[in-house]
């Protein structure tokens, strides 16, 4: 086995990663892109397994024990495979967050394993530059792990229902932790010179990084979680990149840094979509000042009009154009198929039906498109925010299903609102607005929605799926 062949395999893998990522950015070629990236991953693994058989500097071919490798791959493959196949489309964002955490953790473990192997088992030494890189790998990897776990829990609504958690003096605590990271790194690189002190410093660094990842994400509200997941994704790429420097493998550096760059760009795109700056998101506390008052706010709605499916069906029967505004509530109620039926019923009466897609509808950008695609909603009927906003004025009826913050007029009128400046769907401009919702409870941002109080708004309380099915049968009777 020549080392040239191994490097050729690595080069091929790197090129395929670039092609795969490129194709992932176009709707037509995305599925192919994903397969190409998977092939690139396979080649990189084959390349590594070949490299392990190369003779070392002394000319002897190392003996390889595949038990650990096979064991790890089987365990990881089964867990990852089952998780990926069984997860519901509605839970996709938190699954992505969780997988990301595992990737970060793997990078930290690789760095730790190299430290242990070199210093303790082979009694070797690590020079200061490599030591700093190892510390970076541990730091970013560990921080990504706990950060992603918090993001997962928040998206699942298991951690204070996704609300921001603000510790007193959190900036001071975080600063102290960062100082700790720098201190331990310096100790590891320059002064710790016995296997024991090396081990201690790496353990201390891991512990601090894990806590830091947790603390950095808990103050960030659920509404900002997509940005955080994207940023953590970028971190996990950088962590893989650092691991690449540690073991001296270019494929890791190339793939890792491309993920790092891709994550940064996506993060930036999402920030623009929500009209928030990255710093603003990271400092966190979004909606926190209002969360105390939100439950009170929710009870403080005045002049809310509600109606049942019968009345709504009568209005829809005469409407010439209807815009559906889908939100996460639609997904939770699994109402996408019922909505598709309703649209068909309306279209058979000559009504024009379109769907208004907010860039961050659902739990993640593009999430709503995936969910509606699952229900075979024609792609052409999904209209992006900028294109549909001028249409609301001339639309007879809007059906808001389980969406909240993305149709809150406060974003454009109330300067004191925490979501002020966020681009919204101008649903309130339509002749009649039906809001299908279980209750008046606030959405992810935790604030009151003035849309519910408008004269042209009718609340239809209940489960999204049942209400929409009710609308379909009422329409059939008219």
């Amino acid at each position, binding site marked *: 086995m020549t080392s040239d062949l191994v490097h050729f395999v690595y080069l091929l893998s790197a090129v395929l*990663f670039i092609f795969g990522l490129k194709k*992932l*950015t176009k*709707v037509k070629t995305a*599925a192919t*892109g994903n397969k190409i*990236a998977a092939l690139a*991953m396979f080649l990189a693994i084959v*390349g590594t*397994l070949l490299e*392990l058989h190369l003779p070392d500097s002394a000319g002897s071919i190392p*003996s*390889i024990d*595949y038990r*650990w*490798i096979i064991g*790890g791959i089987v*365990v*990881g493959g089964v867990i*990852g495979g089952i998780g*990926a*196949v069984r997860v519901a*489309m509605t839970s*996709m964002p938190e*699954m*992505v967050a969780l*997988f*990301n955490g*595992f*990737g970060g*953790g*793997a990078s930290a*473990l*690789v760095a730790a*394993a190299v430290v*242990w*192997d070199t210093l*303790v*088992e082979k009694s070797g030494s690590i020079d200061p530059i490599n030591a700093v890189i190892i510390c970076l790998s541990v730091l970013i990897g560990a921080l990504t792990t706990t950060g992603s776990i918090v993001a997962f829990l928040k998206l699942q609504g298991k951690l204070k229902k996704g609300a921001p958690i603000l510790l007193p003096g959190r900036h001071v605590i975080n600063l102290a932790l960062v100082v700790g990271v720098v201190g331990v790194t310096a100790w590891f690189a320059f002064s710790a010179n016995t296997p024991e002190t090396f081990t201690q410093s790496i353990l201390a660094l891991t512990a601090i990084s894990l806590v830091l990842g947790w603390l950095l994400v808990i103050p960030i509200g659920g509404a900002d979680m997509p940005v955080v997941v994207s940023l953590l994704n970028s971190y996990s*790429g950088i*962590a893989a990149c650092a691991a690449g420097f540690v*073991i001296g*493998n270019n494929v*890791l550096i190339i*793939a*890792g*840094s*491309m*993920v*790092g*760059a*891709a*994550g940064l760009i*996506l993060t930036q795109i999402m920030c623009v979509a929500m009209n928030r700056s990255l710093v603003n998101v990271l400092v966190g506390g979004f909606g926190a000042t209002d969360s105390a008052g939100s439950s009170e706010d929710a009870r403080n709605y005045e002049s809310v009009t509600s109606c049942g499916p019968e009345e709504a069906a009568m209005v829809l029967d005469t409407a010439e154009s209807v815009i559906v505004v889908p939100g996460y509530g639609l997904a939770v109620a699994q109402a996408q198929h019922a909505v598709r039926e309703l649209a068909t019923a309306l279209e058979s009466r000559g009504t024009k039906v379109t769907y208004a897609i907010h860039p961050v509808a659902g739990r*993640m*950008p593009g999430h709503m*498109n*995936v969910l509606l*695609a699952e229900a*075979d909603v024609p792609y052409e009927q999904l209209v992006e925010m900028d294109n549909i906003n001028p249409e609301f004025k001339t639309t007879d009826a809007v059906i808001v299903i389980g969406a909240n913050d993305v149709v809150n007029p406060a974003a454009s009128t109330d300067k004191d609102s925490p979501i002020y400046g966020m681009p919204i769907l101008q649903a309130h401009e339509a002749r009649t607005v039906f809001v299908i919702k279980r209750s008046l409870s606030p959405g992810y941002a935790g604030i009151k929605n003035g849309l519910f109080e408008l004269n042209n708004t009718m609340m239809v309380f209940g489960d999204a799926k049942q209400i929409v099915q009710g609308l379909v049968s009422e329409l059939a009777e008219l």
Partner: protein
Amino acid sequence: MAMGPLLIGLYVFILAMFVGFEVITKVPPTLHTPLMSGANAISGITIVGALAVAITPEASVSNLLGAAAIAFATINVVGGFLVTGRMLAMFGSKKK
């Protein structure tokens, strides 16, 4: 010109960052989640590093750490590509 492996690594790193930025300039919102998920799967490339540390014949701490890293990275890789595939399959079915 002699270049250490670290310097070569830096060259590769910086050039790859540029390629990354160039490759992903315009992305339709529809693809944000699948792209994030696909990139996420690629970050599991760290499995390559894990393989290299998990091989010594005798059981040792570094072997165990390496095996754990392999398991973690495989979850990321297998899960990530499969989930992305599932999402993208939905766009495909609808075009027909």
